[in-house]
């Protein structure tokens, strides 16, 4: 078979592949948002002064969460969520919530560590200056510390987002539905098409690789733009 036949075949299934990419990106970006929110909350818990029992308990829970999530493979977490924890959602007409929550929870643990180290990298004189004016811990945190921390964590946060986008490809291990209709993520659809046309299997896989690569390049570009924007107000 010639190269142009392969191209023709891929061109003929482009709609399906793009649909698959769409599913992958929906899962990835919803998970990024959940992960970021969880990450901020966990980081706050880890960093807050441990001056009462409540926060001490939360701190222990956060530790456990981070340990478990970082200590087990993503695919295994997804299968456990699908089969046990979120089993109620499994048979919903639209069950994308299962992977979205699973990836979000996974990403949250990593985001927490990134955000925490970003906050810790801000000079501790900043918190002292805020507090010495009479500002509360949380006002100083949100007005002074976090805006500075964001600048330092942007590269690592984007790294995490890029890893997450690619990692969502393991979602092809579970059955996905939107509005009762079965859908596939990018790798999932390529696998499915490849079953019927084994001769084109490797072409499909290469196409998947190229599409992921393009998405990652776009994300990298966005990262650069944000960094340039933030660099305008140079820090001391």
């Amino acid at each position: 078979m010639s190269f142009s036949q392969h191209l023709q075949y891929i061109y003929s299934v482009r709609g399906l592949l793009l649909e698959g990419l769409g599913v992958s990106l929906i899962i990835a970006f919803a998970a990024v948002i959940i992960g970021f929110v969880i990450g901020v909350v966990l980081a706050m818990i880890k960093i807050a002064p441990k001056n009462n029992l409540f926060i001490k308990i939360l701190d222990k829970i956060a530790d456990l969460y981070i340990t478990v999530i970082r200590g087990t493979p993503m695919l295994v977490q997804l299968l456990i969520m699908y089969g046990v924890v979120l089993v109620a959602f499994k048979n919903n007409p639209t069950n994308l919530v299962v992977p979205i929550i699973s990836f979000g929870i996974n990403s949250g643990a990593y985001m927490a560590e990134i955000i925490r180290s970003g906050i810790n990298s801000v000079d501790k004189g900043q918190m002292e200056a805020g507090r010495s004016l009479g500002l509360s811990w949380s006002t100083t945190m949100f007005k002074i510390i976090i805006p500075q921390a964001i600048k330092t964590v942007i590269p690592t946060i984007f790294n995490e987002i890029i890893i997450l986008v690619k990692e969502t490809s393991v979602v092809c291990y579970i059955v996905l539905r939107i509005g009762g209709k079965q859908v596939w993520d990018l790798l999932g659809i390529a696998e499915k098409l490849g079953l019927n046309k084994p001769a084109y299997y490797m072409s499909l896989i290469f196409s998947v690789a190229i599409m992921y690569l393009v998405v990652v390049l776009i994300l990298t570009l966005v990262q650069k733009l944000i960094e340039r924007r933030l660099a305008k107000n140079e820090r001391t």
Partner: protein
Amino acid sequence: MKERNTAPLLQVKNLCKKFDKNNVLNGIDLDIYKGDVIAVIGPSGCGKSTFLRCLNLLEIPTAGEIVFQNEYLFKLYSRYTKKQIKNLKRPVVAPINASLTEEKKKEILANLSALLKEQKAEEKAIKKATDKGINQHRQKIGMVFQQFNLFPNLTIMQNVTLAPIKLKGLSKEQAEEKALALLDKVGLKDRANDYPSALSGGMKQRVAIVRALAMEPDIMLFDEPTSALDPEMVGEVLKVMSDLATEGMTMVVVTHEMGFAREVANRILFIDGGVIKEENSPKEFFENPKDERLKEFLSKVL
């Protein structure tokens, strides 16, 4: 020392601070009156910064008392342990004291419970004053740091107006008007919209002073405000500080600038080994030092 007929603005009693096993402050007593300009000097590592930072509870003291405007900023309170209470009750329950009359027993128990109640009330009052009040007290205690600690993510104007808008309920316009007036006084009105990174060290420190002043504090604490500056910028900051002193601001200044201490302060403290070794008026302090360590210190720095 002059006789004072008003209560001190800030009272420090037997202030102690330990870092793990490192005893840094070992019982500092000091009454600070309105209008005082107190220079604090001493060898490196003697606890000057720690002392200053205890005054607005950036460091939590390990013992002693700090009273600010007649309210506790800090007080270590003790509470009887269960064991101590048991011991106190012993005379009542022990069989050897069978001779004790019922009346006497009742009296002992009543005294004990009154004592515990009193302790609890005191603990509660102190906790309330220190926990809840600290942010309020800090609004009245300005602090200027060696490293300026301006907020690099905010403009000069935002640096100065953030706290007044958040805490004093000023509108943005009111706060900015006031900030401009203060910035004008230190010659930085035209830099209001710059970010701190565009300013020299001396300018940053002047802004840091303005930022603290914008809260209209009753006392200002300075921790070596000129030590991080290039020599040619020291003068402009000291000028702002001596103007402030002339206007009657109460100030505690940790400094290595002996000229400033001599000219501007009305009291000078020498701290060594975590205690105030000597306190005197500038003239006596420099011309007639009594403490041996102070003599040695002065011979090195003068």
